[in-house]
């Protein structure tokens, strides 16, 4: 018996998009209603996953292995597995195979939630080519969900690339003044990263065949053979993966597409771009790069570079944010900084850092998604994002100002809100490995407070100086509704993150164990069974782990 819940979640938006094809393009309101209902349905069908997954959060999942001429299930990492390996295109060994663990579960819930929120937020923002807009948005939704669900490397790659097309169109058609440039830059940049990754995937595929005699892209099968690739090959493969994922995240020197794409994209596009698309890069690191190439990521030089780039990204992104005159650009650069924390958490390579990283990815989706919505609301009313144009907005839009304050505080990592838990856990993980890393990264937290509070001060405080701002209307009920789920999540994660850590515990420990092997490490000291209060009260265990002890050959 197989549970098809993942397929249902995956294809609900696509079915909605096909449905929309048959609605005449003149009836814009009908299209909006249908698209919103489909997006809501996409969120609702994903809800049953929550109790189902919760019940089995500590139970083992399954993996596929090829034994005695057929594929059999063995205890492994993945749950709700749908499909059988090698059944889609048997002649090349690609299969339609879906499955999730705690990490992808959280990201899928984030995707369905943000998909609904961002479609709801576009009701009035999009007035031209409405039908197309919603169709592409729903197609994008399916593509993103596919990336997080695929357990077949080939299927993953198809979703990974196919998803670029709707995003490219969303930026290019409904974007700002420099939309053509931004759209093509986004498309080319991300394609450049993924084509080399395809070659690396093919290498793993042939490597698996030469070891086992089976041609397959099944992820769990490749997990068995890929770590045994000798270092001199693995380093190149890792670099190919790194390029693909680092561009997507984006890590420091590869981030230049992001401000352009964010600034030009329509609001909902930015929300999805920041909230979900960037997470594909970090998800790729966790799901593929770490378990495939443990010897490379444990290599002290490689790891030093990764951590170094992350820290540079944290500080550089924050400094550039400080200088911005355009609100959306400021939020875009702050993403570079926040994603730096996520990659830092990944490459400290202990369970504390890794679970913090995943949680911070969710947090970033919630907070930064909300920040883009906030900027979009102001832009829709005034058609400018220049900070200098505003001032004293809290006088005319009090509800808006309150929500903005909460979201800013969540983004800068104030305790009791979500951002704090994620950043704190990452820093704790970094501290356990090397105090210098944690120390440098803290600068990013301080700068985040600086650029966000300064922005808030310039836009909201004081008296209304610009006469154009005097007649601004406060949030409509629909706009408030878009923030409600995000606010709930921000407080939930901030006040009681234990369930999230519990969901992450099993996959994160598994990955750390795969990467570090049997080396005794800090796994036992995970904070996963502690509430956030306990974490804040107890000082982090100062265990120095000899970093480069393993993995060098």
């Amino acid at each position, binding site marked *: 018996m197989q549970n098809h819940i993942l397929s249902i979640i995956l294809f609900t938006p696509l079915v909605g998009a096909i449905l929309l094809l048959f609605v005449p393009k003149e009836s814009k309101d009908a299209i909006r209603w249908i698209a919103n209902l489909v997006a809501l349905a996409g969120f609702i069908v994903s809800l049953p996953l929550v109790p189902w997954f919760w019940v089995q959060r500590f139970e083992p999942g399954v993996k596929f292995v090829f034994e005695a001429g057929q594929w059999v299930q063995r205890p492994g990492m993945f749950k709700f597995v749908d499909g059988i390996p090698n059944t889609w*295109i048997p*002649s*090349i060994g690609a299969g339609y195979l879906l499955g999730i663990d705690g990490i992808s579960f959280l990201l899928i819930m984030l995707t369905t939630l943000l998909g609904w929120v961002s479609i709801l937020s576009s009701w009035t923002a999009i007035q031209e080519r409405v039908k197309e807009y919603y169709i592409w948005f729903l197609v994008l939704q399916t593509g993103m969900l596919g990336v997080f669900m695929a357990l077949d490397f080939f299927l993953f790659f198809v979703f990974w690339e196919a998803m670029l097309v709707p995003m490219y169109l969303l930026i*290019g058609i409904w974007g700002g003044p420099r939309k053509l440039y931004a759209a093509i830059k986004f498309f080319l940049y991300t394609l450049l990263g993924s*084509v080399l990754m395809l*070659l690396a995937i093919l290498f793993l595929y042939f490597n698996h065949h030469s070891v086992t005699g089976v041609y397959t892209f099944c992820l769990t099968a490749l997990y068995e053979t890929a770590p045994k690739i000798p270092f001199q090959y693995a380093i190149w493969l890792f670099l190919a993966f790194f390029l693909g994922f680092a561009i997507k995240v984006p890590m420091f020197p590869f981030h230049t597409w992001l401000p352009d794409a964010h600034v030009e994209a329509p609001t909902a596009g930015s929300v999805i771009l920041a909230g979900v698309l960037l997470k594909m890069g970090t998800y790729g690191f966790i799901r593929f790069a770490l378990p495939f190439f443990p010897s490379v990521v444990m290599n002290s030089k490689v790891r030093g570079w990764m951590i170094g780039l992350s820290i540079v990204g944290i500080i550089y992104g924050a400094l550039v944010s400080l200088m911005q005159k355009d609100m959306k650009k400021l939020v875009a650069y702050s993403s570079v900084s926040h994603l730096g924390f996520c990659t830092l958490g990944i490459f400290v390579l202990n369970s504390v850092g890794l679970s913090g990283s995943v949680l911070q990815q969710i947090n970033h989706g919630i907070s930064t998604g909300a920040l883009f919505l906030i900027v979009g609301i102001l832009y829709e009313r005034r058609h400018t994002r220049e900070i200098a144009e505003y001032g004293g907005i809290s006088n005319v839009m009090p509800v808006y100002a309150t929500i903005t304050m909460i979201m800013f505080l969540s983004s800068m990592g104030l305790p009791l809100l979500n951002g704090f838990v994620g950043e704190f856990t990452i820093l704790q993980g970094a501290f356990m490995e090397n105090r210098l890393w944690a120390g440098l990264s803290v600068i990013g937290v301080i700068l985040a407070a600086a650029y966000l509070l300064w922005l808030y001060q310039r836009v909201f405080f004081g008296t209304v100086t610009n006469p154009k701002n005097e007649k601004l209307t406060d949030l409509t009920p629909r706009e408030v509704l878009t923030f409600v789920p995000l606010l709930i999540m921000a407080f939930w994660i901030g006040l009681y993150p234990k369930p999230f850590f519990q969901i992450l515990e099993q996959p994160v420990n598994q990955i750390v164990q795969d990467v570090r092997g049997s080396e005794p490490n800090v796994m036992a000291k995970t904070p996963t069974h502690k509430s956030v209060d306990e974490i804040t009260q107890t000082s982090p265990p100062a265990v120095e782990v000899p970093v480069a002890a393993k993995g060098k050959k």
Partner: protein
Amino acid sequence: MQVSIAQFFQRSDYLMSLPMILLTIFALGILLIDLMLPDDWKWANAATAFVGVLFATAGLIKVQIALGEAHRQMVPAFMNSMVIDRFAIYFWYLFLAGAAVAILMSVHYMDVEREHHGEFYALILFSVVGMMCMASGWDVVLIFIGLELMAISTYVLVGFLRRDRRSNEASLKYLLLGAFSSGIFAYGLSLLYGLAGSTNLVIIRQRLAQQMAAAGDHADPVAVLALLTVATGLLFKIAAVPFHQWAPDAYEGAPTSITGFMSVAVKSAAWAMLLRILLLGLAPLHKIWVPLLVFVSIATMTAANLAALTQNNLKRLLAYSSIAHVGYMLLGLIAFGSANTPSGVDGIRGILIYLLVYTFMNLGAFAVITSLRRRDVIGDEIDDIAGLFFRAPTESVLMLVFLLSLAGIPPLAGFWGKYFIFLSLIETGHYVLASLAVLYAVFGLYYYMRIANAMLMRQALDKEPLKIGGSMAAALGVTALATLLIGIYPEPFIRAVDWSLGLSQHPAIAHLVK
């Protein structure tokens, strides 16, 4: 002793050449009927030609069944000058598909151009006969005759717009360069005859191998000269750098539907010929032609991708893109030729799949460009396609599908061509070549997306809605459906290719696989 020539021809020879015979009959019939048709009945020629292609397809199915019943990998015909095997049948289907779509595309277009004559369709059918000879030739003389039949038909087709100076210029250029390259090609073939004492590719291969073995694995200088001259002719026909200069001009000047036809069917035929000659006749020299092709393919990808970046004429842009695609396909041949294991066969698989998907996606793109032509609008500049979305939404989305497929974005057909090429390169250890090829694919995306940008994101200069005739809609529908279907579920098509290659038991393939 008196020997009747007739005794060399058997009944099976005629059965095996049934599709060619049918096409020739229909082509001659069109020439006759055309004289009796009034001007507004010229579409009947197209209908006749289309029916002719359908009959030829039926004939081909019969050939395929006969081959299956005989339980043979191949049937030689006409005193071993022709060989009907699965490889040939695969290509014959491709040619017929290309011709059918090209005919559908031409009906309205030739009417607009006021050049709707029966010869047009007759020439398309004749050129398909030539292609069939090229794909099934075992004897270099037959291959050469097929090549010339195809080439001469195409020269005329390129210049079919008599009142258009571009068309005339293109035709003349194509004719002169084409004749020159055919001369070099024929010279090379004569050298091969001199070396081997036979015009049959199998015997040529045996003799060359014997001579090389006798000379201690060294190639005779004359054999090298023969290889170079033959390769020149072959590379000219597939439009590989440095023998590509004719292609952009000929593609730009030719009637648009013929440009589409040339870029797929004519190119596939040239590829079939190239594969036959290099893999069968000149296989013993593969240590020489593989490095040569490495150079050619890198030059082709570089020159074509860079040149395409700045083109503003759609037909010229797609001409350069089609040259670039040849560069990728050559990589498959390199992977095959340089491998000592059965693994290299993925390269040939890649070429065949590439040609299949290319047929549909490129014809689809040209069908959209063809439909832009109206009485007073030439419609082949990027500006002409600007804002197409507002004039013809369905067509512009289909064009987007074709362009993304050409760029190799999954899950569209074009991805599979590139996928198998890259696969074969990784499999045979050509990591640098593979990296180079994927980087050029990013260039490719840029120039295809320039068209998409114009089409979807710019305002229309010309607001008039586009009218699409029934036959054009059929052409677009078939090509788009194939592009999507092959993209999403390629399994049956991969199997068809494996079938046509006999999975490395094929004589043209097996000898390299030790």
